[in-house]
């Protein structure tokens, strides 16, 4: 498992990038051969983390986030305003982002894909204000993905009536792939 940082920032103010990357569980080899290793972008790595083809929610997916490797992220803030001018989730509401991103196995063997954590809870003064769930579509909490296939993830964001314009959440998730 290769852990990198993912920032999820949401709310009605500060922006934030989101970065996800990971590796497939690809066995090593030892032989008298030349070895060439290249770091790929998140979209082209053996464990590809990308937007979902045809999804209308690709605007919430960011890339780069300060990285030269096109690292992937999620951003539901005013720092990533949509083409329609929106920037942040509504208070006292549940917002669903269907088909938000996918993790695709571009390697050569089955991998157990897991995103951790799948939930974030923000509190203020003892009151829960913001809840974020990353929802896999076919396997919970992990799923086996065969080469060439992908697991798609939705996001459900609930901001309670205790949330204010200063409510925000910025955190890290890890996408991992290991041989089952």
């Amino acid at each position: 498992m290769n852990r990198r940082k993912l920032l999820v920032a949401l709310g009605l103010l500060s922006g934030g990038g989101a970065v996800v990357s990971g590796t497939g569980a690809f066995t090593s080899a030892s032989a008298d051969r030349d070895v060439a290793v290249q770091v790929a972008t998140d979209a082209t790595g053996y464990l590809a983390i990308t937007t979902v083809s045809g999804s209308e929610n690709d605007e919430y997916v960011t890339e780069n986030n300060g990285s030269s490797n096109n690292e992937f992220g999620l951003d539901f803030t005013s720092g990533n305003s949509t083409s329609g001018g929106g920037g942040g989730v509504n208070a006292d509401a549940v917002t669903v982002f269907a088909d938000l991103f996918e993790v695709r196995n571009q390697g050569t063997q089955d991998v157990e894909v897991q995103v951790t954590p799948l939930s974030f809870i923000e509190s203020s003064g003892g009151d829960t204000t913001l809840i974020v769930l990353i929802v896999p579509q076919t396997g919970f909490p992990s799923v086996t993905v065969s080469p060439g296939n992908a697991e798609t993830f939705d996001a459900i964001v609930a901001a309670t009536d205790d949330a204010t314009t200063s409510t925000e959440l910025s955190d890290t998730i890890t996408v991992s792939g290991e041989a089952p």
Partner: protein
Amino acid sequence: MPLTITDFIEQVDGISTDDIPLDERQRINDALADRTGGPGGGGEAGPVNEDAILVSKDLNDRAGFTSIQDAIDGENPQNGASGAGEDDTIFVEPSEYTESVTIDVRGLTLKAADGEKPTVTQDGGTPVLVEESKVIVDDSITFDSGIDVGADFSGYEPGISESEADAVVTNNPNGDNQFNSIGAALGSNDTTVLVKSDYDSSNESGGGVNNNALIGIENNNVKIISEEGPESTAITGSIERAIDITAENVVLKGFTIEPDSDVQESIFITDVSDATGIEIRDNRLDVSGAGDGAEGIVVSNNVNAPGGDATVDGMKIVNNKINVAGNDGRQSGIAFGNAIFTGPRRGVQDVGDGVIERNTIIGGFNGIQVAADPPSEMVVRQNLFGNNRNGVVLNSDVGELSNNHFINSGNSDITNRRDATYDVGSNWFGTETFNDTDSLDGKLNLENDGDEAGIDVSQWAGAPIDPDAGLLTTDDPPA
């Protein structure tokens, strides 16, 4: 793949569904119903994913088990369920389960699904016996017998994060809201204090009644919580008392309080007219090395300032381990008033409906002593009493005396000096270790005349000690 929010909460340490408002749970579950085919709604909202281990009397085509033991053993799975493995969590839906449960899976957590508490009533023998380490039996399940008893710190969680605290106490303060002593952090009402494990109680400058305590808690609505629990955060010192509480709505959670030879009480609560919000929880109080007459927790009118009243009404004393053994002039583990000085000197104005639950009390003259004239509705349950001279001494009536385990009492397990009678059948007396049912004769003192009212003590022969409840061995000196 139907999901509810409980499936997600299950993945996060230190969070329960109770942290999510019910209406919010319902809205999220409705969204999950749309995306995953989950049941929606905020009511039962138990875990429904296929990997959760569910016990229910009404599975309704869901994967699961109809008994807790089957879920542990993987026996009789319904609808494709799998049994528990290491570090798994079993969710038990509300109902009454008649069975004896033996947990032999390391790291297993047994907890209730949302809704009413499930109740487990033993069908003979041990109601719940833990045979592996790192097992958590959550308070959310009621075991209707006496073996799931006493204090257990293995699942300690502070319940708050550093960012949620108003003040942080650390030996290396760095910032406006950081202090090197609890006393310094308690400058005003409505303060939540998180204490780091590097806390050094020698930084305390004293306080409390007549400035005779190491720490005086005088502000209302304060919570003092250790981040890492009693195994990592200690209050030690040399003064008359360790902690005085003279304020309302005080929570003290997660400390070892181990005073030295000058101390009389670990925690002294007085001058409090409303104890509803006072919680003493998850602490290890060791006065075995303290002064003559040292006690664990004392709630009393203020002997030092006559007129200062005290009440226990609504107070919660939960999951504390109190060791009085080894103290030459040992007194009570928990005392409400003082049997010798009843009335205005060292009585309690109102015992009320406090709760004393899941404490381990070792080696006291009296494990718990209730000395107050008004009858009370106090609940005393699921405590483990070991090697006390008297387990519980009732100079006042209590509302419930159930599911306690009394081991190796020197004089009496229960001394009742009032007129009320109690059904003590749900308590346990004796152990297979001490095999002391013979010596129980004459020690129950359930009536004023000391007669056990014909109770057959042999029914408790062979009761094991709850292994997570505290350290009790035959090496402990008998009271």
